[in-house]
């Protein structure tokens, strides 16, 4: 289908974008790889699209005070090739090839993926697994929101209607950082049926403080806390069994809830191996 009618404005700067977003029904346009699809399907009908692609200063990747800051307009392809991300945020580097297809990764942005908060998307889960945070500019100024508090509900985040997500930050990996990532999709690059992003610290036998964050199984990224505890206690089998309590997936077009729960266990076994590897 074709999108409904809307107006279009190119923001010159962050302040200008925030001002334009004051228009009733305005929506922010970044990479557009999710938004324009929803417009074409008439699942959303904004009055105005505020295009932030021309705003400078939102496409940097930099290490600051032990944290890697990734600008909102960094495109997936840029992240995929970034030596800084490979070194300081290896979980994101590992997730990147699973995100969309080549042409989608050329346009889609990291900030857009986080802000859109598709429950089956990879990056929101990575951000939660890493205990990252989101930098937001809005009418009241700038603020930082922890990833744990950012994803509220289905496509709902801590972003207000006039807020612009400007960057994400994650703790830079250290020598004892361990990460794991796996997903199952019917076609490489499609949204996952079930996926798992994980981070932990190496500590002898069992991974310490593991954070297991599933995607495609709920309305937001879902932490599997009982499985985390079992894994920290050294029992992978108990961790897999605990997933039945941690996760409550719904049937969808891709798989039934029972299949998803089973696949979540399969992924946990794969990811647990990755967490053990140095």
């Amino acid at each position, binding site marked *: 289908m*074709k999108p409904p009618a809307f107006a279009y404005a190119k923001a010159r700067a962050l302040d200008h974008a925030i001002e334009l977003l004051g228009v009733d029904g305005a929506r922010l346009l970044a990479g557009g790889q999710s938004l*324009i699809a929803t417009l074409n*399907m008439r699942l959303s009908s904004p009055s105005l699209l505020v295009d932030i692609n021309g705003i400078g200063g939102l496409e940097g990747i930099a290490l600051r005070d032990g944290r890697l800051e990734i600008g909102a307009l960094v495109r997936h392809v840029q992240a995929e090739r970034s030596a800084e991300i490979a070194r300081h945020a290896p979980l994101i580097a590992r997730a990147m090839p699973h995100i969309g*297809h080549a042409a989608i990764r050329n346009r889609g942005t990291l900030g857009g993926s986080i802000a859109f908060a598709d429950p089956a998307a990879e990056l929101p889960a990575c951000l939660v697994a890493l205990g990252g945070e989101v930098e937001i500019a809005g009418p009241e100024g700038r603020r930082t929101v922890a990833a744990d508090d950012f994803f509220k509900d289905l496509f709902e985040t801590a972003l207000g209607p006039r807020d612009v997500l400007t960057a994400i930050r994650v703790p830079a990996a250290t020598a004892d950082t361990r990460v794991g990532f796996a997903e199952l999709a019917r076609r490489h690059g499609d949204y996952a049926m079930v996926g798992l992003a994980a981070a932990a610290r190496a500590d002898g036998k069992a991974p310490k403080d593991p954070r297991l964050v599933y995607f495609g199984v709920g309305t937001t990224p879902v932490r599997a806390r009982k499985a985390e505890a079992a894994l920290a206690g050294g029992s992978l089998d108990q961790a897999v069994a605990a997933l039945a309590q941690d996760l409550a997936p719904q049937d969808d077009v891709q798989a039934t809830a029972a299949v998803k729960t089973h696949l979540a266990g399969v992924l946990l076994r794969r990811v647990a191996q990755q967490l053990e590897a140095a």
Partner: protein
Amino acid sequence: MSPHLVDIRLTVNGEPVNERVEARKTLVDFLRDDLGLTGSHIGCEHGVCGACTVRVDGVVVRGCLMLAAQCDGARVETIEGVSDTGEIADLQEAFEKRNALQCGYCTPGMLLTAQELLARGGVPDRSAIREHLAGNYCRCTGYHAIVDAVESVAETRSKG
């Protein structure tokens, strides 16, 4: 001027283009309807099938997931332009020789996507070729012949 209309200046296949477009018009509709460049096809219109693949500022994108209004100042290339320059003549020949197309609907998108991979140089293995083309549906060939064609061109070019 209505805020629903946007003036854009860009180049398409090297030619300067100045047009007034509806804000809601996608790039592929603009190319097909306003410029008559119907080599870029429309399949799913939500980014899944890859039939609308074009190049913007040197990289392949979904023509259905960009607005024409966003292309102000951009350099757009379509299958028509890339064919005319001879950039992919060897790839087109390999597709024909190996029956890597039947109905041809996906072919412009396949060619542009494959060319992006080939332009990186070297000889990608078959799984890398498959992965790079994973965003382009073909409902005729079963893909094997397409992978064959791309692989053979990679080998020939790396020797050249």
